[in-house]
């Protein structure tokens, strides 16, 4: 984590965006700092892609201020410092990988040499292959190569490693980390919690158009203090829902998994409920479980507020 205040790369101030009558964002504040990898997480429709769309100038805010490198995101000078990997990024079918990359890199004055980009994206062996003859994962690598080709100060990645094998995935993560260490800001939208956990040094959770958590992956997990208790019981699952600290009960194979914020109290109550319990285990929750818990409790709080 950067210790000194890093320059702001991009920011939303009081941004509002509605689709028809549906307000996705309402007075939303958010900023991205140089040298940091920020993951945007949240359920579908929470406003993640709207936030990314506003910052990159793909969408226009109805109200509020949006700035990219201190400029309007539509400004060519701002765009010259940004590299984007879209979720549905088609490629020019009949051009080769090297031709497509060379063409795109040419839009940027600070472009990296094509050979270096191919190497970083793990595409050196595919330079002469036509884009319509690539596998899904290979095409994603080309889109990543296009995103880094202009040596961007802001790298926006939307579901970057979909369709990747584990080795390619780790290789891309290493390159992304390297870009952040060299001072770039990275905005990552992903559904893969392990990706966010492995890569991001800041996680921003959005639900219902609001930021409900913002911190390091460790801090997010600590904030919800989520623990999972797995146990084997003959008692019905419903009876465990009411135990102290338990926020969620799931059936996992022959076991029950209790997500709890008070592991000790929950475990004692569970053992009291069914003294016959022999097998149980206690583990820290994954980021995914912590998030589910967070989104759930936020929803409950919102309902209470509304009532």
């Amino acid at each position: 984590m950067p210790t000194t205040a890093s320059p702001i790369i991009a920011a939303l101030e009081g941004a509002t965006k509605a689709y028809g009558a549906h307000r996705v964002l309402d007075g939303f504040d958010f900023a991205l700092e140089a040298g940091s990898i920020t993951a945007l997480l949240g359920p579908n429709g929470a406003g993640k892609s709207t936030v990314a769309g506003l910052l990159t100038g793909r969408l226009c805010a109805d109200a509020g201020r949006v700035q990219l490198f201190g400029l309007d995101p539509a400004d060519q000078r701002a765009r010259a410092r940004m590299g984007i990997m879209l979720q549905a990024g088609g490629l020019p079918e009949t051009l080769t990988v090297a031709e497509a990359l060379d063409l795109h890199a040419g839009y940027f004055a600070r472009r990296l040499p094509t050979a270096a980009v191919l190497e970083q994206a793990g595409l050196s062996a595919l330079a002469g292959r036509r884009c319509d003859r690539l596998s899904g994962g290979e095409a994603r690598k080309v889109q990543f190569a296009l995103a880094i080709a202009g040596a961007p100060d802001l790298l926006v990645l939307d579901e970057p490693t979909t369709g990747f094998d584990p080795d390619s995935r780790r290789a891309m993560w290493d390159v992304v980390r390297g870009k952040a260490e060299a001072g770039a800001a990275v905005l990552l939208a992903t559904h893969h919690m392990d990706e966010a956990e492995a890569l991001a040094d800041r996680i921003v959770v959005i639900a219902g158009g609001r930021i409900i958590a913002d911190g390091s992956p460790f801090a997010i997990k600590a904030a919800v203090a989520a623990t999972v208790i797995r146990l084997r019981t003959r008692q019905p699952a419903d009876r465990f829902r009411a135990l102290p600290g338990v926020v969620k009960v799931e059936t996992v194979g022959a076991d029950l998994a209790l997500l709890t914020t008070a592991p000790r109290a929950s475990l004692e109550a569970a053992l009291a409920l069914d003294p016959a319990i022999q097998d149980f285990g206690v583990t820290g929750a994954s980021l995914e479980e912590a998030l589910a818990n967070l989104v759930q409790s936020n929803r409950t709080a919102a309902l209470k507020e509304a009532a």
Partner: protein
Amino acid sequence: MMTTALIPSPMPVYARESWAEIVKSARMPQFIIPTIALPPAFYALFALAMGQGSAEAATRTLATFGVFAVMGPALFGFGANIAAERESGQLELKRLSPMPAGAQIVAKVAATTVFSMIAFMLLYALGIAGGVALTPAQWAMLVGVHTLAIIPFALIGLGIGYRLGQKGAIAVANIVFLAMAVLGGLWMPIAVLPEAMKTIAWALPSYHLGEMALMAAGQREASNLWLHAGPLALITLAAALFAWTGEKAQAR
């Protein structure tokens, strides 16, 4: 300023984009063969083989078929191509890049011009072989009219491509392509058409361009030029509006 060094000088970008567009299309045989080979093939069949060696018929048909030859690359190159690139997200990525806004259009116009020129040069070669004899000034004017034809058709293609998906754009471009050719009198003079259809011709750029091409080739009285150049200018303006509003509808 540091920021000025971020944008490359635009000319090489335009040139590279244009070259890429030409290469992309040239590698699509399904695009290149029908658009370039069809007009000369039709010309050889209808004007030369069936026209029984009349130099006058060969000249008249050459003038109107030249307009026909431009329509394919312009309507399909813009319409279907833009729709496909929009659907696949390529257009979006370019729009979010620092690429100069005009580069995409300039590149497509360049590619359309190259392929149209190949098509009507093939026609001219066949025409000369079939007995067409024009003065250098007439040839120059004919090339001018045929090149001018790219503009309205490209704009119509652009408007279609911005509004429809790839499949829809191809279907609509085909209908427009055939209607322009037949009702615009490019295949046969509109004199043979029913009265109601002759009126429609006045709203079609293909009709006015065909008549202007006939004037260039000395087959019509050139004093009527404004009778066709005027409506053509209006139609082109409307086509530009059609393309521009389609582009605007993309922005969110």
